[in-house]
Structure formats: C-alpha cells, structure tokens
C-alpha cells in the first residue's frame, strides 16, 4: 500500500466522519447535560431532509453556490425543531429519555418522508441538488504528501466540523457555560443550589444537539448523496451515539472515534482495489468496520463513565 493510497483513505475517512463528528458533538452536549440522546438518528434525518429540500429550492431560485450553505442552515434549524420535542418531553415533562429519543427517530423518519412525498409530487426522494459542497484545497498545506490529500483537501463542512470540535472542547472545559453544563449533567441539584437554572441549561444543550446533529445530517445530503430519501440516514445516528460513548463523552474522544469509524469504512473500499479481495467473501469486507470497532473497544477502551446524572429527570426537591 503506497502513501497515496493512505492519503486517499484518510480523505475518504474524513468524508464519512464529518457527519459522525457533528452528530456526536451534539450527542455529547446533550448527554453532558444529563439528557440521553438516542434520537441523534432522527435529528440527522431531519437535518438531511431540510438540507436537501432547501438547497434544492435555493438552487432553483438561483442562489447558486450559496445554496448548500442555505441547506446547511435549514438542516440545523430543522434539527432544532425535532430536538425541541425531545427537550419538552424529557425536561419539562420528564418523559423517559430513551423512549423520547426513539420517538424522535420514528417521527423524523415518518414525517420527512411524508413531506418529501408532498413536496415532490409523490416521489420518495427529493430532486437532485446540483449545487452541493465541493472539496476545497488549502493552499500550500494541500501539497504536503499524504496529509495534503488526506487532510487538507476536504469539504468545507469537514473543516466546520473540526472547528466545532475545538470550539466545543474549549466551551466545555474552559468557559463558565461549559462548567455549568457539565455540572448540570453530573449533579443537577448541586448546580441548582448554586443558582444555575438546570432546566434552562438542559434545554440549551438539547437544542444545540439538534443544531449539531442537524448539521451532521445536512452534510450527508450536501456532500455525498445530493438527495434525501428513506435511507440517506440509515444508522449513522447510532454510530454517532457509539462514538459519543466510545469517545467517553469528550469532543476529542468523539472526534477520534468518528475518524476511526470513517477509517474503518474506507478500508473496505481500499481492500477491494487489491486482487486478493476477490478471494475474500465480500461480506467479510463489509463486516470489517464493525468488527474492528468491537476489537478496539475490547482491546483499548474498557469501561467508560457516563455523566453522573445521565438519564435522570430533574426537578427541584428531588432527593
């Protein structure tokens, strides 16, 4: 395997990873505040849907290369909308958080497809968006061997995701907001007794997770598929959730986990370039990313500790 291949693998890995990074950041914010977010899949679905639809309409209305950005914004917005359902149910009405997340997945899957059918005259898929994101090369840096191809030739959304990792890491660990957010997820009544508005923090976190997961879904529609259909999002939300846990609820950890998943995915394409791959049943190649993930989990990570109050509704006077 030569260096160029490794560069290409990295590049493909980033394409897969971008959405996972964004969504898992969303998962981290929500879960750090104490709200389980198994609805990432649904939030991504909502984001992908809104992105495909609005980018398409923006493109038709002549917004040109601004269209994917409009799509991205719409994706975030739609993600928030669904996250709001989750927030109201779990925070205000103290519904079981897992249940609510599953409901989000259900409603997102059903309603987006329904809307697609309404908006596109019965079609099960949105029309193709031609104005999608394109990879940009960072001058100079993209000439570095391996890394240039692997890292510095990427979609703007990939850079956005990486920047957000840094921003969220900084926010969580360096700012008062982050300190408070983590406190709320670890020990809400401790936060409450020092005057932090627990419910408001949780709302903020869950809505932000809608933004991020929505962005994650949107990147898939705006970089790889160019459309939205019933399985544009099929399992990525769950993989992102795995990345949250795998990454120990830490943005950098989740980044690593997401890149790992992306890398494992790209390996199977690279393997198929080699002649020996025709002797390996293709099913084993498809399995590879998932098997690798389990092996890494078993070998390296071990027990990860969730935020202390994850999954527990909070109300004043709770003991």
């Amino acid at each position: 395997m030569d260096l160029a291949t490794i560069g290409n693998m990295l590049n493909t890995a980033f394409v897969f990873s971008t959405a996972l990074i964004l969504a898992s950041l969303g998962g981290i914010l929500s879960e750090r505040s104490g709200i389980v977010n198994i609805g990432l899949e649904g939030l991504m679905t909502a984001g992908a849907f809104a992105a495909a639809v609005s980018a398409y309409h923006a493109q038709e209305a002549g917004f040109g290369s601004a269209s994917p950005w409009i799509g991205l914004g719409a994706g975030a917005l739609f993600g928030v909308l669904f996250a709001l359902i989750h927030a109201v149910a779990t925070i205000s009405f103290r519904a079981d958080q897992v249940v609510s997340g599953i409901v989000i997945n259900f409603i997102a899957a059903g309603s987006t497809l329904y809307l697609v059918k309404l908006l596109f005259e019965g079609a099960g898929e949105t029309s193709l968006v031609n104005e999608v994101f394109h990879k940009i090369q960072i001058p100079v840096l993209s000439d570095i061997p391996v890394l240039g191809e692997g890292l510095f030739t990427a979609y703007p959304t990939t850079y956005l995701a990486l920047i957000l990792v840094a921003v969220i890491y900084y926010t969580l660990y360096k700012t008062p907001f982050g300190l408070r957010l983590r406190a709320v997820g670890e020990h809400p009544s401790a936060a409450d007794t020092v005057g932090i508005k627990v419910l408001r923090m949780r709302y903020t976190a869950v809505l932000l997770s809608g933004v991020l997961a929505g962005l994650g879904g949107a990147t898939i529609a705006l970089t790889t598929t160019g459309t939205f259909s019933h399985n544009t999002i099929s399992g990525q939300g769950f993989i992102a959730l795995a990345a949250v846990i795998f990454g120990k609820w830490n943005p950098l950890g989740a980044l690593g986990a997401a890149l790992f998943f992306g890398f494992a995915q790209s390996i199977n394409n690279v393997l198929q370039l080699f002649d020996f791959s025709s002797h390996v049943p293709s099913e084993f190649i498809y399995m590879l990313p998932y098997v690798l993930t389990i092996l890494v989990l078993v070998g390296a990570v071990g027990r990860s500790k969730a935020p202390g109050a994850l999954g527990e509704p909070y109300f004043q006077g709770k003991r």
Partner: protein
Amino acid sequence: MDKARTVVEMRNITKRFPGIVANDSVNFKLSQGEIHALLGENGAGKSTLMNILFGLYQPEEGEIFVNEQEVVIDGPNKAIKLGIGMVHQHFKLVHPFTVTENIILGSEPKLGFAVNYKQAHKEVERLSKQYGLNVDPYAKIDEISVGMQQRVEILKTLYRGADILIFDEPTAVLTPQEISELLEIMRNLVSQGKSIVLITHKLKEIMAIADTVTIVRRGKVIDSLPVAGTNPNQLAEKMVGREVSLKLDKKNAVLGEPALEVDRLVVKGRQGLNALNETSFVLKRGEILGIAGVEGNGQSELIEALTGLRPVSSGSIKISNMEIAGATPRTISEAGISLIPEDRHKHGLVLDFPVRENMVLETYYTPQFNKRGFMDFDAIDKHAERLVKEFDVRTPSIMTEARALSGGNQQKAIIAREVDKNPDVLIAAQPTRGLDVGAIEFIHKRLVEQRNMGKAVLLISYELEEILQLSDRIAVIYEGRIVGEVNPAETNDQELGLMMTNYKQSQGGPSSEQTD
C-alpha cells in the same frame, strides 16, 4: 453580648407534601451571631424548613423576613443574594470536578470567554486561609475525604458572601477529629460575624456549641429555648415525645469460642495499593468488637474482604475454624456472616423492589423460599410480615417499594433481614448513620441483644460515641493495621482520637493528614 439583631424570621410557615404536613405553621427566629440548633426526629421537617429558607421549596403559607425585610425566596439564587448559604445533608458537590471548580460554579471569575482559574484558585486559597479551612483548591472531590468535602461546601457559601449559614446534619459523616475541627470552624465563623443554623441529631454537639435550640416534632415547633438552661435528657424527651434512655444498659460480656479469626490479612484497595496491611484480630462469641478509625484506613476494604466482595492477597479469615478468605459472598454468607452494610442504598437494598423481595435478598434460593426454581411467595410474604412486625419496620405494606421508606426504616428492614439469618458473626457498618435518637436506641438495643445471645458482633463506625457505648473491646485501625486495642471502660474519645490518627502522646497539634 448586647441584644442581637434578628437576621432571619420565618413566620407561620406551612409546607405540605402529598400525604404529610412537613411544616405546620412553624415560627423560627435566628439572631445575628448565634448558632441556632434545630432538633427533631427523622422526618420531623427540619430539612424542609431550611430548604424553604434557601429557596428550594416554596411554602404554602407564611412569611419570611431577612434582616427585617419581608422577602420572597423563589430560588437558591435569591437566597444567595440575600446572603444565605446552605451546607446540605447530602453534599451538593460535583465529584469529577476540582475543589475550585465546585466553589466557583455559578459565579465564575472570567477572563475573556474563559473561566479565570488563576484568580479563582487564589480566591479559594485566600478564603480557605481566612477561615482556617485548609483545603487544596486543585484536588478533585473524588480524591478528598468527606470532612474535606464538607469544608468545600462551607467555602462555597463563603465564596458567595453568605452571612447566614445553614448546616444540615454536618457531623453525621465526620470523624471525631473532623467534628471538633468543624465546631472550631463554626465558632470562628460566628466570631467573624456570621449566623448559623445547625441541624443535628447529636445532643452533645448542641450542648457544646449552640446558643439556642428549636425542637420540631411532626412538622410543629415544640419549643425554642436557650441551650444554657437545658440538658440532653430534656431535649431528647421533647424531641421524641417520650422518655428516651440515652445510656444503654449492658450486662457484662460472656465470652465464648472465637467466631472470627483474621490473621495477617492483606487486601488491595481501589488504587492497587495495600489497603489492609497484615491486619489481625480475633472476635469471640458474645462480644461486640468495635473497630475505631478514621474513614479510609481500610475499614471498607476489611468489610469487603470479610464478605467476599474483594479479593484477598494473602492472610487468612476463619469463621468457626473454616477458612473463608477468597470465598464467594454466598459461601461466606452461608458460613455464618451477616452484614449491615455501610451504604444501605448501594449494598443493602434494591430500592425498586418491594419490601418483601428485599427481605429475602440473600436467602431467596433456599428451600424455605424456593421450590424447584420457583419463588414461594406465600412463604416469602409470611417471612416479610413477621420481620416487619418484629423489627417495627414502618411501611404501609410489604408490597411497598423500599425506596418509599424513610432512612431509619430502611435500616431497620436491613437489620431485620440480617439478624434473622441467625449468623455467627454480625458485621454492623455505620449502622446508625443519619438516624434520629429514637431509631438509634432501637438499633443499639438489637445489636446488644445479638451479643447477649452469644453472637459475635463486629461494629465498624466512625462515630466514637457509638463505639464507646456499644463495644466490649475496641480495636483501632490505622492505615490498614490494627494499631492498638483498648477497653472502652478505660478510655475516652480524646485518647481514641489520638490513636486513630496514630499520634503518639508526644506529637499532638492539629491534624493535617487530609491534605496530601
């Protein structure tokens, strides 16, 4: 002292919870510069009243005045603004955070967008010095002792500029040394102009430090009087509504065969270091052996090793001559060890299960309760009903979830279960933590009763008073070793306290062992 100003006045406070009036038209007055004790049984409504003052609960009726101004305290934020701080019964600390992070949480000094940790650390250090609290601002809560955690709680209130401090059962979790240090800190605080409400079940502390005491029973104020003119027996009686014997009558011990022999036991602790270092002792039938020691000197590991929850590195544990070191919890339980665990919620009960299922936690599989793999609920119910009656466990029914029982009754349920197993050795770890005098009396009687029946009782407690009162013999544990053995009749808490910190007579001085 001249006529002190009233800093807090609560008038006719009523607070109802479903099915209970937690505060019934309560009047309460706190004067500037005083330590005001609040005394009452479990569930009397003390915490509720103070939670109202701190804005955690809203009363249905009544008014609150702070510094002679009528106020509505609609949340902790408001209370903090009014200069009220509270150290809660269950600490409100975020464990993965550092001391500083916990203290500044909610009112962080800023530098641009970021928290200004440098300034924060400095401020924490300054306050810590000013009030003699001696905390390490950089330590994680997980890594510091309970006493230190409490000081962090105190610092939290001071950092927010509180003048009125509420302590909810602050000594329930402390060692004797820590308690005397805390009392010192409280005196210090008062001398610097603070006013303090102290909730406690320990009459001795009230006598030692409080100026005024208000007694609450079933949500009602029974009396409020200066401490100077009263005595413990009078207080206990007012509180429970009947006479309570604070002294335990205990016949002399009739010693029998050795029931538990621990020989050069070595056990690794959580960090992988040896938590028990060749610990040896012998426990005979018919005696109560008290293990005295500062928390964290191997007591938890000892309990876990004795019950099979922690692997044994070397050494031996024998029960009536049967080696049980490294055996499974079940083998050990069947060999005749029962445990009243330290943490009743963690090890003692399945809170989501009804009482009846909790009553057979270790015996569910025996032929008595199990027929060919099926639970015999008729037998289980009968058994549970009997225990509930015999041990006066106050529960609406045996089908009630354990979670709904008060702490005292949860503890009684556990004791009922463990004693009923008819063990040779009964290990009681912190059996009365957080319980009121009435409940303590009940439990102490039961332990002595077991000993009188010829059982061996191992009492592990951080409360010297309890150890001194119950034990026939006291072994002091320090850094995983038994460093001395004393006769309770011939010692006092001063001497014990020094042994526990392993200070030879020559050393002395304030303890500093916590700050490493």
